[in-house]
């Protein structure tokens, strides 16, 4: 097996989910007329540049929390823990933020799938949701959806090794 596919990056970069649709992200996105899409892209780039100048990093954390809440809306999530997770994401240099995220972070996450950068946004969602679930007590407690999901610690295999919840059969 190639080591490239077992990369050092933490959760989100060593699987094949992005190629295979196993996360359910693939499909469902609308087709875009090229001219309309490039015009929208240029507009987004302009707005992103302007919003970047305003320095609105705080919205990024809010967006991360929204991603988790939206994608896992069937779970009862401890809100304080989710806030703590959002803060910890800020210190993760491996989060795959897409271009123009200053702009996207201020949009409802529900509309991301319609954006020109939707593939990059989907990668971000996948990274964040996996990271959150593996940072909580959800899997150690048997993926029980009836219990409140509590944040334990930011999932990082170098900071907290030997915490794989799937070793037991």
């Amino acid at each position: 097996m190639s080591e490239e596919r077992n990369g050092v990056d933490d959760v989100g970069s060593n699987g094949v989910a992005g190629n295979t649709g196993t996360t359910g992200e693939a499909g469902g996105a609308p087709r875009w007329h090229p001219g309309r899409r490039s015009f929208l892209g240029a507009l987004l780039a302009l707005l992103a540049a302007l919003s970047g100048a305003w320095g609105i990093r705080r919205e990024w954390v809010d967006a991360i929390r929204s991603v988790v809440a939206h994608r896992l809306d069937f779970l009862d999530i401890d809100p304080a823990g989710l806030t703590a997770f959002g803060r910890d994401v800020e210190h993760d240099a491996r989060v795959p933020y897409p271009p123009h995220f200053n702009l996207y972070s201020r949009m409802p996450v529900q509309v991301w799938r319609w954006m020109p950068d939707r593939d990059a946004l989907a990668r971000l969602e996948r990274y964040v949701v996996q990271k959150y679930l593996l940072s909580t007590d959800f899997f150690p407690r048997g993926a029980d959806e009836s219990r409140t999901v509590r944040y334990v610690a930011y999932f990082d295999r170098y900071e907290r090794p030997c915490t794989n919840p799937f070793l037991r059969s």
Partner: protein
Amino acid sequence: MAAYDVILVGTGFASSFFLRAWLDRAASGARALVLERGSDDTRDWQLSQRRVSSTDTALTFVNETPAKAWGFSVGFGGSSNCWAAGTPRFMPVDFRLRSEYGIGRDWPIGYSDLEPFYDAAEEVMSVSGPADNGHLFPRSRPYPQPSHQFSRPDLRLKSTFPDTFFQQPTARARTATGRRPGCCGNMVCRLCPVDAKFTVRNELGHLYSDPRVTLRVEARVLEVQTRGGIASGVTYEMNGGVQDATADLVVLGANALFNAHLLLRSGFSHPLLGRRLHEQAAVDVAVDLDGLDNVGGSTLITGQGYMFYDGPHRRTRAAAMVETLNPLTLRLERGHWRQWMRLTISFEALGLEENHVAFDPARPDLPIVSHGATSGYTQRAVDNVPALVDELLAGLPVESVSIGEPTRQEGHIIGTTVMGDDPATSVLDRNLVYHGVHNLIVLGSGAFPTSAPAQPTLTLSALALWSAKAVLG
């Protein structure tokens, strides 16, 4: 000019196993010089940077065919820093592909020649492996460590293929050795967070502290010197200066790109030198499972399948080996979080002469690497993946299957200094000695006449011990 008994180039698997054997035999006053072109990136540095090397390998060679990538690591310990630590042996038939199937070339040695050295290499690496694969790989003693634990999908495969599906032999320790802990399933093996996989640094690093050994890092060898048909030493560059060193024995243990390039740069001119560059092809397969959780696997790669490896098909298409993997990835669908599995299917490749490493006097420091051709033998096997997958997964509750494109590299560089008994058709003899230069040894998978689908590292390590025994006595 400094004089040594032996000069070794490189500090990866091949050099370090050879050095170990040399130290076992050397007198107290003997001297070895080891030259490593890369840096000594400590484990603390690796962890802090989350990188295995400070050297960007892309800058160390010219790739004329970028669609084909080459994976390796430069620095102390070589590619032991970045490997995934799969350590299967080759099957006995892999050494006689031409005799059995009329394909490729036979090796000048057989499985039984290498078996004691496989044993020794497995002992050094504390290899973990199953007890029930001896009918495929005759063994003189058990694996040093018990096998890793199958995942639930693996158990289904085992019940379907009891004689051809096993836990992967691996140097990701199952239990602690004296120098490293057991694998605890972090699933990031390139840089193991707990140092559970074998590396040169963690198990053989002490060799380089032996008073008989002088290690120089960031020391790049420019030339192998010869005089009157024998190797007399090397010229190397370090700290901005050029130095010479002489030795009774010169051992090249860099990878198959650099060994061949160094020899070409030094004026060696065997027509096959640098030729037959190859490595296995591979395809990744992702499988969504219906109601079966992929849990319980105790390490990244748990299963290894030989159901498509050997047989009459090998007359027309390449052998295939299956691996099952357990990366820490979720299927982001409610209630189906772990209901998926990943496979890698690897295929043997043939060394085609048009695929090569070359020396360009205009760019003397960089191997020029070209790999534009894939054999029909391998391609036919790759094209057959859908049929293999159907047969493989027949006993599993499959929801959907996604077959990827062939991967760009497998981290195995093979060919370029092929071994054989006939100097007209091989660069090295059966003991890895350069034909006609009795004190120049070229180690590594560059010597392989053919590549089985199995990973080459254990075999190249065993070959280094075989060569040391033959040359040093």
